[in-house]
């Protein structure tokens, strides 16, 4: 069972700080990491391979430095890695990105499952996974928290929803986006790190994947960012200090005065 895992390199937004003077994002020294959701995607791909055989191919679209994310994927158990990189991809929105990745995936033969993280931590859109599935004309299931392989042609998954989860059966090939509930990603092993160091990362550009120039990068992007600004900061309110008993009495009184409780 061959698996493709789509990953993205993102700035580590966990540690992002706002510069109090300029009110802008402090970017100095922000490291690039694998999108946290994609770690679950890689782990799930590797687990399926360990159980059913086959190989895991990690792919990413990004600048040349995104290669380090692919090496990390190999260190975590992926067998092969493909970097899709070209300045012509610059300015791609989710539609152009879905097109580019799906076009690149068409050059990879015989896959059963494509796994993506639920969303990327920088854009938070969750749009590229379903977009790829549509362009490849295969089914997809979002927010998957459990995968069960039935046979060579079908799988059963649990899809997380606001009120619980759905059980969905799907034909293969299928694209799944996964949530953190699905597994506990292992750390890279020493052997994995060695393999990652030596691995040859295949690099593909717009021409080698046979992309239509009208559908990639800025040309292929219907959406355009017109403004970026900082969200208004919430300012502090009233402080309640002293004995727990008094604090409790005061806040309950306040809330009942406001008619909240």
């Amino acid at each position, binding site marked *: 069972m061959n698996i493709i895992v789509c990953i993205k390199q993102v*700035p580590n*937004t966990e540690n992002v700080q706002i510069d109090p003077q*300029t009110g802008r*994002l402090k970017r100095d020294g922000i490291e690039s990491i694998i999108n*946290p959701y994609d770690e679950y995607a890689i782990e799930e791909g590797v687990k399926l391979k360990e159980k059913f055989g086959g190989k895991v191919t990690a792919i990413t679209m*990004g*600048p*040349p430095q995104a290669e380090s994310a692919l090496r990390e994927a190999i260190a975590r158990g992926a067998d092969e890695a493909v970097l899709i990189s070209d*300045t012509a991809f*610059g*300015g791609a929105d*989710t*539609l152009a990105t879905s097109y580019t990745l799906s076009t690149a995936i068409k050059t990879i033969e015989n896959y059963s499952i494509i796994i993506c993280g639920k969303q990327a*931590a*920088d*854009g*938070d859109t969750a*749009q590229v996974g*379903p977009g790829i599935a*549509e362009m490849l004309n295969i*089914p*997809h*299931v*979002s*927010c998957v928290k459990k995968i069960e392989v039935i046979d060579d042609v079908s799988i059963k998954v649990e899809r997380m*929803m*606001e*009120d*619980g*989860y*759905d*059980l*969905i059966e*799907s034909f293969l090939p*299928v694209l799944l986006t996964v949530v*953190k509930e699905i597994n506990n990603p292992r750390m890279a092993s020493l052997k994995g790190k060695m393999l990652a160091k030596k691995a040859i990362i295949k690099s593909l550009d717009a021409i080698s994947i046979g992309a239509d*120039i*009208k559908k990639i*990068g*800025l*040309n292929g992007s*219907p*959406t*355009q*960012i*017109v*403004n*970026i600004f*900082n*969200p208004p900061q*919430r*300012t*502090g*309110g009233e*402080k*309640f200090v002293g004995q*727990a008993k008094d604090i*409790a009495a005061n806040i309950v009184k306040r809330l009942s005065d*406001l008619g909240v*409780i």
Partner: protein
Amino acid sequence: MASTINIISEKCVGCQMCAKSCPFSAISMVERPEHPKKLMLAKIDLNKCTYCGICNQTCKFNAIEIKLDTLATSIDKSLYKGVWIYAEQRHGVIHKVSYELLNKGKHLAKELGTTVGVVLIGDNIKAKAQEFINRGADKVYVCDDPILLEFQDEPYVSVFSQLIEKEKPEIILIGATDIGRSFAPRIAAKIKTGLTADCISLEIDPQTRNLKQTRPAFGGNIMASIVTPQHRPQMSTVRHKVFKEAKLEEGKIGEIVDFKVDVKTIINRTKFLGFVKDESTSIDISDADIIVAGGRGVGSVEGFNLLKELADLLGGAIGASRAAIDAGWIPYSHQIGQTGKAVSPKVYIACGISGHIQHTIGINADIIIAINKDPSCTMMKTATYALEGDMHEIILNIIREIKSCRCG
């Protein structure tokens, strides 16, 4: 030919404004020893640049030149009319976000001088259409078929996109729910148009009829406004509880239209086998008016039982920060924030939560109450009411106080 962006070195004074303004860190400053005044020069990393033009607007010296290569095929935008909203139903119950979208849709339609349409997809669902008319919709398209009983991406996408291609709306709003976020991108990819995720503000530019869609990005650290200038329809998923529900309109007359599709055209390669309800909570946190949330400071599963007691007393739901989920004190379905759910309660009680932006981005509350022993943490500094002290002790006292109020 691709788009180009150039720094005009004669005009650049090395002020760094562009580098600071770039949301993608695509601009760096390089030394320029040959310059008579040794001024720095801006340099653009084309691998990171998205040609968004923000640097261009920031530069006071007109030193940045952007040429956009718009091969994009222009469509005849005048063919697209009307604002549509998706009426989300699950197990036959309409999600409230649908009425919120209707309210916003009505305002947008008024500004555009057009009508509001509602798309209702399901099985035996027609009875739900009239409510949308009563609340101000001009037209409800009903897609009724047994295959549409439970939400599955492919059949819903098939039906919805056929309807779009036939009727050509200019705007489509869909709730940014688990369902909306799953199938809206697939529709956009099918009909080849733009989709903006998780919008929290929508405005019309009267000149271009473009919809300005504003959404948080980078874990809520920045807000981005996005338009879809050359394509129609313009599609957005919109967060729950950002807008108020559409109110009933006395005597509103509208039309209910059956949209029949040939079942043979509905692709479906998945099968809905069943649904398992989350029993750990009776109230869905994305719908709750009061949320009692716990973080690292809660310390244990027992700590969450105390929070649960308070939540039950207030008729609220239980939320948690990522730290509490990762510690295994409470299931992931309770997580609020960037990697969890977005909530909009009236009151949010944050217990032992320090308030990282990754958590607070998920909260849109009228009143935030922070309970923490550390008065210097972000949550305490930004809360409406900051309660300083031992979290457990304060909660115990609040529970006691409420009980005695109610008894007395």
